């Protein structure tokens, strides 16, 4: 690629990144303002729309000294376990749906597809009733379980696995590898980008969850970040400083993780060969 192309493309990339980030930057800066000032300089655009007249760390300190710290930890634990367990479960299913031949494969695949067409919030109430009967209320298990079997992640992984030629598996069998070995030693190592994608799906489902944690984990010890942030909104008085501060911190943690994983996207897997 020549330099003539790089400049306009870079402008587009930076422009898109700025459009994505500006609202968050505004929120982050608002968290550093005294509360009376948060909505003062919205319009017309001025230097103070983005630069506080005075900087205060009151909101940030109150945020981390309050229940948010615990909730952030809960979110991190719940999401990490969900992503790990979910990847194991979903990749196994995707393997069975892509690499193995048996009657009824189409039916199972259809069930997986249908499962992510169902609006989870609509079924949360009856499901929460079942979870309460099983004594899963106020537990990590109660928070994690609905996130692990993700039809969308299965779908993504299966799409990817279909691109891995079956001859590879058959060759490995000649070498004495069983199906489990084929799965762990051929399919998984070849599928890092898809695994990261599936991890992203599992992550977003759990990180964004709000209604379900509210129903199943009302105990503040089990609050997740989204619930703790929402509780800054009182009927008579909303703590926008802490709310926006909390929102920015919930974005920063995944940003750090994502920057680490980004390098796998850079790696090119273009040489894996005979995709149809």
């Amino acid at each position, binding site marked *: 690629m020549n330099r003539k192309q790089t400049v306009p493309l870079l402008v587009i990339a930076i422009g898109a990144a700025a459009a994505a980030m500006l609202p968050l930057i505004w929120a982050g800066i608002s968290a550093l303002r005294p509360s009376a000032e948060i909505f003062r300089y919205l319009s017309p655009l001025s230097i103070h729309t983005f630069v506080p007249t005075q900087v205060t760390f009151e909101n940030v300190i109150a945020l981390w000294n309050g229940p948010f710290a615990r909730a952030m930890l809960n979110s991190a634990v719940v999401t990490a376990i969900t992503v790990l367990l979910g990847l194991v479960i979903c990749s196994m299913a995707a393997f*069975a749906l892509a690499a193995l031949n048996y009657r009824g494969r189409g039916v199972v695949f259809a069930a997986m597809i249908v499962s*992510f067409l169902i609006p989870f919030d609509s079924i949360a109430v009856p499901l929460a009733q079942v979870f309460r009967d099983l004594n899963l209320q106020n537990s990590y298990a109660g928070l994690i379980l609905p996130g692990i079997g993700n039809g969308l992640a299965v779908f993504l992984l299966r799409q990817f696995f279909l691109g891995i030629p079956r001859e590879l598996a058959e060759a490995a069998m000649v070498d004495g590898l069983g199906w489990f070995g084929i799965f762990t030693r051929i399919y998984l190592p070849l599928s890092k980008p898809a695994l990261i994608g599936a991890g992203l799906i599992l992550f977003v489902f759990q990180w964004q969850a709000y209604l379900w944690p509210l129903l199943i984990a009302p105990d503040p010890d089990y609050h997740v970040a989204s619930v703790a942030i929402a509780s800054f909104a009182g009927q008579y008085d909303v703590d926008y400083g802490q709310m926006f501060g909390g929102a920015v911190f919930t974005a920063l943690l995944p940003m750090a993780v994502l920057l680490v994983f980004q390098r796998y996207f850079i790696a090119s897997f273009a040489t894996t060969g005979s995709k149809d």
Partner: protein
Amino acid sequence: MMTALSTTRTTEAASKAVPAPTPRRTLSEGMVAAIFLAPAVIAVLVLRIWPTGLALWQSIHVGSAGTFGLANYTFLFSDPSFHDALSATLLFALIVNPFQIACALGLALVLHRALPAGALWRTLILLPVAVPQSVSAIIMGVVFRPDGPANALLATIGLPAQGFLTTPDQALYTIILIVSWIGVGYWMTFLLAGLKEIPFALYEAAVIDGATAWQQFRYITLPQLRRPLTFVLVADTVANFLVFAPVQILTKGGPQGSTNLIMNDIYTRGFLSGDVRGAAAETGILVGIVVIVVAIQFRMMTGGKSE
């Protein structure tokens, strides 16, 4: 580094595949599949399909006497708010899906190139999806307030102020912008992964044949992206059918029903008005619609093959 490793392993395995394969099988493939599928199938059955069954069961109950019938469904079709919801949802779906996929694909093509600090831009564009929607909706609500920064920006470049979420003819488009702000980076990430999979040699050959950039896109990139695109098309469509938090927080379906997307209608009916059976019936209808749309998309993208 990872590339090198997996490539070597691949070619090694492939080179040994020369003799006719006679796989050693202790378990039938069906049995193996059952073991691999079990955890996911159980999770999906217990945590999704079964509660949906419960909801559908509820939706055919009528009145406190517990008789059965379709009255909950016939009521819906006579309810103006459900009509609003259907038309708003269909209009929304027709615009938001092509818009988001086009933006996501465009950005993926840009970021696929080796740009300075490329990983940083990719991550930043993806970031809005990591903010709890309950707050990102509030932030975007402030941006689009009639006296907010969006109008201030328009004023700076000499354009008249817009009503955004307060006018029936702009509210739905503003919601589209807001959900796209959240979603485009997310879908872009999957397409980017797909682009990385396309063998570079294909482009090299095309360049030798004198193909233009458009021809390369049309005859190499698009066909090679078929699987990731199918995924993004289906998943994005489904996600957009289920959009709910921004609407509930910003417009509650208004003004004049113009943003009453079907999930908002279901939420209002079931949670706010307490009509649980009506909401269950509406959920049933929504799932039915999405199943049909997705089935059509699969047909289109795969030409009827089983993918």
